[in-house]
């Protein structure tokens, strides 16, 4: 029937367009894996320099995430609950690191933690070229992801639950820890993992703040520049696999379970 075919056409066109998008995203990833002989990958995975950079990258990103969480999650609760003057400006400021080009962000960070900066002079030496400096760069570019995720998670907790808890005799801090935080935990956890992943993958800001010690994204760039494409791909594949593993963890373990509540 003509009308039946019409529905079919419409969805078919959409599905075709979708295939183009999927292909565009998947092709480079499949391409790089195909371009990397298994032997190269094995060699990279026992290369002490590579392993050390991976350890550094994971640790620096974790440090950045945990520190940001202690400060950022309670703040996200405030943003989700209170409608104070200038709130929308504060929300905009928090999003700034997302849209600022990361190489420019790296330069900007240098003015705060570099040789000539207040912090540089305070510590007697700059944070550039240190693990702390790397963590600061990672935190700067990825903290919006955590705060936004936590804010949305708190926002989806019905305020009536908190109000009911108040009338049952719980003070605000008790309500926060026994009601708001547990009910928002999935959203917050996925914000933490997202921030960690963004920290691990940061290149632009980190390469400017610290070329050494070398994080893995920087090492990929360095090997590409110094030794060519072949030398870079095996490290790139290794890092892509780690990121994809974290990502799968995020998707599979933190998916909201419909049956629970």
């Amino acid at each position, binding site marked *: 029937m003509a009308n039946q075919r019409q529905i079919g056409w419409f969805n078919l066109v959409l599905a075709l367009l979708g295939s183009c998008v999927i292909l565009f995203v998947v092709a480079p990833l499949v391409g790089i894996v195909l371009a990397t002989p298994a032997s190269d990958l094995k060699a990279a995975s026992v290369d002490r320099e590579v392993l050390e950079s991976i350890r550094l990258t994971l640790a620096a990103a974790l440090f950045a995430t945990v520190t940001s969480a202690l400060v950022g999650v309670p703040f996200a609760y405030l943003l989700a609950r209170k409608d104070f003057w200038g709130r929308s400006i504060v929300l905009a400021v928090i999003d700034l690191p997302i849209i600022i080009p990361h190489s420019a962000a790296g330069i900007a960070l240098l003015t705060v933690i570099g040789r000539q900066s207040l912090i540089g002079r305070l510590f007697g030496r700059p944070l550039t070229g240190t693990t702390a400096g790397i963590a600061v760069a990672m935190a700067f570019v990825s903290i919006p992801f955590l705060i936004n995720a936590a804010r949305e998670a708190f926002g989806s907790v019905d305020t009536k*639950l908190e*109000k009911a808890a108040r*009338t049952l*005799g*719980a003070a605000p801090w008790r309500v926060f820890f026994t009601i708001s935080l547990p009910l928002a935990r999935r959203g917050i956890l996925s914000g933490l993992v997202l921030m960690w992943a963004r920290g691990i993958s940061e290149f632009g800001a980190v390469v400017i703040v610290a070329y050494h010690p070398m994080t893995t994204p920087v090492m990929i760039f360095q090997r590409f520049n110094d030794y060519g494409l072949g030398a870079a791909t095996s490290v790139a594949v290794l890092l892509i696999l780690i990121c994809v593993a974290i990502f799968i963890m995020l998707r599979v373990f933190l998916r909201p379970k419909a049956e629970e*509540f």
Partner: protein
Amino acid sequence: MLELQSIGKRFGAFELKDVSLTINDGEYFVLLGPSGVGKTVLMEIIAGLIRPDKGRILWDGEDITSRPPEARGFSVVYQDYALFGHLTVRRNVAYGPAAAGASAEKIRRQVAGLAEILRIEEILDRYPKSLSGGEQQRVALARALAVGPQLLLLDEPLSAVDVNTRLRLRKELKRINTELNVPVLHITHDPQEAITLGDRICVMLDSRIRQVGTAAELFHEPCEPDVARFLGMRNILPVNRVKGGVCFIDDRQIEAGAADETTTHIWIRPEEILISTEAFESSARNQFRCLVAEIEHHGSLPAVQVVSGAMSLTALITYRSFKELQIAVGAEVYITFKSSSVHCL
């Protein structure tokens, strides 16, 4: 005893105006009004969740206007129950006592006691999501009662359950009020519910309190036509003028024993109007020839709407009379009612 003194609150275009009322010890107090009138705002002001712009709140004479909700001891049951989804029923009920720092043993006993009263023993270890509306309602009540509240605030507690559960829960609410001697403020938009439950009913229209009284007072002496209309009364007629106990209503005259110069409206109870197919002599002073304009079947009692000139009245008759009189739209009938059945507003 709770006293509100000239409470006012403004949120943008919405304004709660000069609300004063008193809820006595042990009383079942119903706040009745259409939705959007500010009933929930008023409840949250009483609970301490919203601070009023104006006015004072007194509890047993003490000013508690600026006391935070956790220190008031008024527990709230929301329309959608607001159960804590991450806690079992048991821990939901125990939430208040735990926050108050009660011992594990005391909490256990308290939960067991309430579970028995509200018949939720079987579901104590389940999560709220898996419960029916009626069960959730009982859990919400148990949780609110667990803190030994000074006052129980119920926000449309029966609007989300089906008809049969609603009838059962009504009795439960009344029983809790009586047996535990907890005063209750019950918010509803349903006049039926207010009548069934309320020791006293407060009618709120347009963000303002219009009348406070028992169900009988409201239904026999509503203070203004708006209130009467909201209570679902039919047959409210505006009076042009009154002369010697006779009310002039457009082209008709109705004898009303109670009418005087201050009467602006009269009201006749639909079931006090008799319908007959022929005129007859009786002690009833009002009889009119009418046409049947419409017949509505509400449940099993037909409501017959008749018109006599510009006057339109509704009579409620039994199904049996309806069939015996063979009333149909367009038929000519007589209505008769006593002068003492005409209530004056």
